């Protein structure tokens, strides 16, 4: 794919002797929302860890914006323009909202004007500005997710890897979070998302990737995946037929 900002090719890796990624290959088009779906154990979160250098790969190559970024350090990846929002609540509950956002700038180079960027992040999320002096643990679930996103934007990433953003959020909060992701996409940021809430996620996505047993079983436009009867079969626990690959 010519306009792909991220390409992963033939990734093989896992935890200890257990292999989770079995030749995972896909490409993510620039300035799109691409959602990875798949059953539990398909390797969705593992592929994120591999991209973000948290999992040492046995084989494979990851290219970002035309550059080989396989197994780079997190700092180098952040500086290259990739940020990662892991699954679950990722705030630092004892620190204030502002301090949490500041932590997004740990990897920032000296040439970056962090105070201005922090103000810009707070402009984007007025609720966080209002509560900037409060302890982060006092925020609601949705506000905490906004805080994570605000923090991840501090280094002005080109690609955001976001793992299960809807987990533990009310439907209204999920909608708000998805709206934020859409506005980021409209500003040119590429979003690669993992979501169990597949239908809602694909509805706001441009592309979808179906992962099964560490292999890419399908890559297509999100609406086509959404309307594919085989997807229901996959999520009901059965494996996809070979022809679907």
């Amino acid at each position: 794919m010519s306009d792909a900002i991220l390409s992963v090719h033939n990734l093989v890796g896992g935890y200890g002797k257990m292999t989770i990624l079995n030749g995972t290959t896909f490409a993510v088009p620039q300035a799109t929302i691409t959602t990875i779906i798949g059953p539990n154990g398909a390797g969705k979160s593992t592929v994120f860890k591999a991209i973000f250098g948290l999992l040492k790969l046995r084989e494979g190559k990851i290219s970002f914006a035309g550059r080989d970024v396989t197994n780079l350090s997190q700092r180098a990846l952040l500086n290259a323009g990739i940020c990662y929002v892991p699954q679950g609540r990722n705030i630092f509950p004892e620190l204030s909202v502002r301090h949490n956002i500041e932590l997004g700038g740990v990897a920032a180079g000296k040439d970056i004007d962090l105070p201005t960027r922090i103000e810009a992040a707070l402009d984007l999320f007025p609720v966080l500005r209002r509560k900037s002096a409060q302890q982060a643990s006092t925020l609601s679930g949705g506000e905490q997710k906004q805080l994570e996103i605000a923090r991840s934007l501090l280094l002005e990433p080109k690609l955001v890897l976001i793992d299960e953003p809807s987990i533990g959020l009310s439907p209204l909060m999920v909608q708000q979070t998805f709206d934020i992701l859409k506005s980021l996409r409209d500003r040119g940021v590429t979003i690669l998302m993992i979501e169990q809430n597949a239908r809602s996620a694909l509805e706001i996505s441009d592309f979808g990737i179906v992962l099964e047993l560490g292999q890419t079983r399908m890559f297509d436009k999100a609406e086509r995946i959404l309307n594919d009867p085989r997807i229901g079969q996959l999520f009901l626990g059965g494996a996809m037929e070979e022809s679907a690959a």
Partner: protein
Amino acid sequence: MSGLGKSLKIALGLAVIAGLIIVPMNFNRYGLFILSQWAVMTIAAMGLNLTLGYAGQVSLAQGAFVGIGAYAAAIMTTHGWPLPVAILVAIILSFAVGWVLGYPALRVQHHYLAFVTLAFSTLAFLVFRNESWLTGGIYGISNIPRPHFFGIPTNKPLPFYYVCLGSLAIVSVAVWWLIRSPWGRAFMALRENPLRAQSLGVDTRRYTLMAFAIGSALGGVAGALYAPLTQYIDPVPFNLSLSLDLLMMVIVGGAGFFLGPFLGAMIAVLLPEWLRFTEGYYLMLYAVAVMLLLIWSPTGILGILDRYLAERRTKAASALRAVAKSRLETAQ
């Protein structure tokens, strides 16, 4: 914080500093010794507070670093080197050893790490005791000189107390700056969740090692002041019980609070002295007081204050909400 609250804090801080400078002028030799010891132990506890309270790395070796600093200063100053140079060497030595001791923390955590550092503490004690060619062994090192600053001798207790107090002031400013810098935030991120910290680009390996190294270096500074304070050192004061005392100072004062070590050292150094009027019972009373405090507030003395302030803020917010609600109802 309101302007008034900030002014009050500054005024209170200035009053305490003025008190620490002026009040001891009337103290006797013993009183000045105890107060100097408080300043020195506060520095060591501040180091442990960085390692444990801010970065979340358990260490039972801070007493050993006080020993390393004390022996470095004692050996150098008895050979004619000036104390500031000895302090610098103590910092470098403790920093380097602390960095190496940090490596186990990359693999083990919590009580396992505590045991690794405990083993180091024992090792350091054995070196102080057995390597008599360097340390004087069980006979220790005596006649440790006190320095001259700008031609002023500090042999007498009061001038040397000011040396200790001045050193505490410098260390306090440095630590205050550190915990408010991105470094301090990274330490706290490391304490709260290493994976989250890593996902933000915090080099957890480097920061873990730095947490140990900086904390240990402050232990070294304390030791380098302890040697001229007592003017005689042997291995006994630097055994495991000093590490446990320092740990208690941090926990009792409030781990992860800037002022925690000041209060903790005050409890550990001054409270036993204040309880001396009870004669044979003073250490028992001291032990009971510490136990009761920790049962009441496991987060230490400053934890009580923190809880009180949080409750007050919650009440104020509830009151504001109630006022807003009643206004809305009136408007409807």
